[in-house]
């Protein structure tokens, strides 16, 4: 008992010693706080008081003007419009009812605005600005300006609001700005750019607005102002001007863009047209579209639901986000691969009985047509599947993969847009990585057969197909595709031109390219695209395609019987004029059936618009 007691007492003694130390630490720490307070409030008091009181300076951010976005001809796609906002400071405005009464003599205020004003009066500080109305008309603003002496504490604020004059046209290219959200703040904080966004309330959310945010936004200036004891700015003490954001000139041609969009006639799909000489994107269509203006001030719930829940997915940027099997439009590239690998000569003939047998599996031609003896030229003109199926026994999937990769298939093209997806260019390695089960990781020869005609595991974006087509069109030079041609610095008038030198050359054999191109020309004369290109005034090289979505298991495909959403995609790839091409394009129309019926006529209209205008002397601007 005695023993225990002494132990307990000793423990208590030790604990009390530790507590005493803690008390000492608290007193020391608080003394430090006290000392610092003394320094601030007694020693530096004069200086700090003068900063706070008689010479109260406010550091105000001067938000920069956001850069405009225009097409290659100077047509505006995004601009800033000045709107007027009326706001009141509660401490200075007098009686609220009286104010509303007098203001409504010449400014329209609806019930909602009045209610909101009263509610916010109760919620905000005496010196905070409470908005009365946004978007005043010029007349209202002018009236108020003349009468403003009657309304102390009420001020007219000019505010820049982003506008997209083209509406739905090219909406997926331009994108939109929206209020700065928490995720944006986090990102800005991480890059130490948040300070630059003080005073700015919107940021690029999609499209060029997002991917070129760093140029469009500009640099926020700082203004130190002297303010009165009531917080009114008196005079500027120091000012660093904001640097306005750069204007962007796109390679897009809005005239061509509109023609291309109209050519879809309301169908869903994607189109990308590229100048094969420099990688400039001339038209970039994603249908259906949306109105980006809805997003600028925060989209209302109803419109958001309508857009987001639509089965047509208007918000999706199809050319870069949608990945599709590209069907027969893949064949020209496979033909090049066969030539390059020495597996086939241009004049090698393959007998096509309408099907190809691999083991016990029979792969049929579309429509089960038998074409007889087929060489490379004919294989493209009539689109013989068997000619390409049979390559499966001559080429490995990996050699095909290695040939296609430099074209950009299954790779991000690096176009200056957000949300680009990579797609799938199948290889044995890819399959090993993508599947978990051992037996699924193996590559089967039958799978190569489907890939050779652009089906199977392959999934490419239309952007990739357009890019590959451009590479083929110029004979093997890879230019990184881009939408922005130049950015203009408004302060010093300088222009930054986006580089248009090829990033790499594929080293294609000109003879091979010529053989394929001649076959593709024939496609538009006597082949599958002959109707769409009837009487065309310039030579066109192209290939139609039909991509199966629905596994028919050997039965006949009947367009009318298959559910509309499961019908085949209609595709076209091509370039014109086929000698010295100025435009290369890829088109996909979702669930539209045969490529020759739907996609090829769209290509005709776009090519006509570009190639023919370029030849007329009236053209306001021709591409370089």
């Amino acid at each position: 008992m005695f023993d225990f007691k002494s132990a307990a007492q000793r423990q208590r003694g030790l604990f009390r010693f530790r507590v005493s130390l803690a008390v000492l630490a608290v007193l020391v720490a608080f003394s430090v706080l006290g000392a610092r307070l003394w320094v601030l409030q007694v020693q530096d008091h004069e200086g700090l008081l003068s900063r706070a009181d008689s010479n109260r300076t406010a550091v105000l951010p001067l938000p920069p003007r956001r850069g405009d976005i225009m097409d290659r001809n100077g047509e505006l796609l995004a601009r800033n419009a000045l709107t007027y906002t009326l706001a009141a400071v509660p401490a200075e405005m007098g009686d609220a009812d009286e104010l509303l009464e007098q203001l409504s003599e010449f400014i329209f205020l609806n019930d909602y605005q009045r209610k909101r004003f009263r509610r916010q009066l109760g919620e905000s500080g005496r010196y905070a600005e409470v908005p009365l109305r946004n978007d005043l008309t010029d007349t209202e603003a002018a009236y108020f300006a003349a009468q403003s002496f009657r309304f102390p504490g009420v001020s007219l604020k000019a505010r820049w609001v982003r506008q997209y004059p083209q509406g739905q046209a090219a909406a997926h290219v331009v994108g939109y700005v929206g209020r700065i959200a928490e995720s944006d703040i986090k990102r800005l904080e991480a890059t130490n750019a948040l300070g630059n966004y003080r005073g700015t309330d919107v940021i690029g959310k999609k499209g060029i607005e997002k991917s070129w945010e760093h140029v469009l936004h500009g640099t926020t200036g700082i203004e130190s102002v002297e303010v009165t004891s009531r917080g009114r700015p008196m005079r500027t003490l120091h000012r660093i001007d904001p640097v306005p954001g750069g204007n962007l000139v796109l390679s897009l041609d809005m005239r061509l863009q509109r023609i291309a969009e109209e050519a879809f006639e309301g169908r869903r799909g994607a189109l990308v047209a590229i100048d094969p000489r420099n990688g400039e994107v001339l038209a970039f269509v994603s249908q259906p579209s949306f109105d980006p203006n809805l997003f600028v001030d925060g989209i209302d719930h109803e419109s958001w639901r309508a857009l987001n829940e639509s089965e047509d997915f208007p918000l999706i940027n199809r050319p870069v986000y949608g990945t599709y099997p590209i069907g027969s439009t893949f064949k020209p590239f496979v033909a090049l691969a066969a030539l390059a690998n020495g597996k086939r000569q241009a004049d090698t003939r393959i007998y096509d009985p309408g099907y190809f047998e691999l083991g016990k599996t029979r792969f049929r031609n579309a429509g089960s047509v038998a074409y007889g003896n087929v060489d490379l030229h004919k294989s493209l003109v009539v689109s013989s599947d068997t000619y390409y199926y049979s390559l499966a026994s001559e080429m490995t999937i990996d050699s095909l993969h290695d040939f296609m990769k430099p074209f950009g298939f299954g790779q991000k093209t690096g176009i200056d847009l957000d949300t680009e997806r990579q797609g799938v260019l199948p290889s044995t390695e890819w399959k090993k990585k993508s599947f978990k089960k051992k037996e699924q990781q193996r590559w089967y020869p039958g799978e190569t057969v489907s890939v050779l005609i652009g089906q199977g595991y392959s999934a490419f974006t239309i952007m990739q197909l357009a890019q590959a087509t451009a590479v083929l069109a110029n004979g093997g030079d890879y230019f990184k595709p881009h939408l922005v041609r130049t950015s203009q610095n408004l302060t010093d008038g300088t222009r930054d031109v986006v580089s248009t030198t090829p990033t790499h050359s594929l080293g294609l054999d000109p003879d091979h390219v010529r053989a394929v191109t001649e076959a593709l020309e024939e496609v538009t004369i006597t082949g599958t695209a002959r109707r769409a290109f009837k009487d065309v005034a310039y030579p066109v090289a192209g290939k139609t395609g039909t991509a199966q979505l629905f596994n028919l298991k050997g039965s006949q495909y009947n367009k009318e019987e298959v559910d509309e959403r499961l019908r085949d995609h209609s595709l076209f790839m091509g370039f014109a004029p086929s000698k010295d091409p100025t435009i290369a394009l890829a088109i996909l129309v979702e669930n539209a059936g045969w490529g020759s019926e739907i996609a090829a006529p769209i290509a005709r209209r776009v090519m006509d618009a570009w190639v023919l205008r370029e030849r007329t002397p009236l053209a306001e601007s021709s591409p370089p």
Partner: protein
Amino acid sequence: MISLFNLLLRGVRAIDWPLFLIAALLCAMGLLVLQSAVGGTDWRFADQSRYFVIAVAIMWIVAIVPPAWLARVAPLAYGVALALLIGVMFFGETSKGATRWLDLGIARIQPSEIMKIALPLLLAWYFQRREQRLTAFDFLLAFVLVAIPFFLIVRQPDLGTALLVGVSGIAALYFAGLSFKLVVPAVVLVMAGVGTVLFFEDSLCAPQTDWVVLHEYQKGRVCTLLDPTTDPLGKGFHTIQSTIAVGSGGLYGQGYMSGTQAQLDFVPERTTDFIFAVFAEEFGLYGALTLLVLFALLIIRGLVIASRATDTFGRVLAASLSVVFFVYVFVNIGMVIGLLPVVGVPLPFFSYGGTALMTLAVALGLLMSISRHQPVLDSR
């Protein structure tokens, strides 16, 4: 009737009056300053008044509970708090770049707040159980129990709360008798670390320097403290404006509701983390020192309760909770007057916000429970 009277008597006896009066005085001052900070009586003032009533009720209920019961729920409290913290990691709601909140369907809670109480509770319980048999291993285990929630909260990221939780745990280790052979070098090491940061400011704050364990924004906060003028529009703004506010207060202050810095919106976050700037501007050095004295009294009262407690549980819990109060006050005021980096730590009883206040109420209730439930008979 008698029983009701007895119940009331028990209720009154459950209160530790010195602690209660100091806290009540602080609350009253807090409401006064909040009214000035919001520029009149608006919804925040009404909210905060309501929170105070709820806080008193919570404090009272906790105070009535005997410490033995508290010890019994300690492991459960810690387990639940830890589970919720892990839940935040996967299902948390993100706001202003940090994932701190968890929506349980009925209410949105901030598990890190619960941890502030649960951790000292658990450690006090653990050291009580291992009394007389403590080995180095016990301290190692206890350290791990502190480190897990600490890093979970740092990850959110919420450096301020992590700091409070970490300090409460380390304090518990110290009061449970962690050898001075470890305490002294640790204190020296921390001092040396802070010294190094101050000395090598320039190279440390160079943009290319990566601080490995800290987030970029946390690095920014430290560097902004070292030289606020580097980012006058961004992070430095808070510190510059709050020191101007405090300094312009002078000896006697600008007068209630008349601090121009606060009233004209120059002090950022003036109802929450930076409310001390409003107070110091309007009440001056005398007011600020009074406030410091009151807080010191509160903390010392807590430590007195600890030293009077008869068992390890009471001692360790009361002492570490007192240290939590100290860290709250020191870090908050230190940050407002530009001594410490801007971390999100509110000023107890002053900053607007219900969640933190409830945590404080529970802490006060625990202190009272320990203070008022000294066993008449020695439990052994």
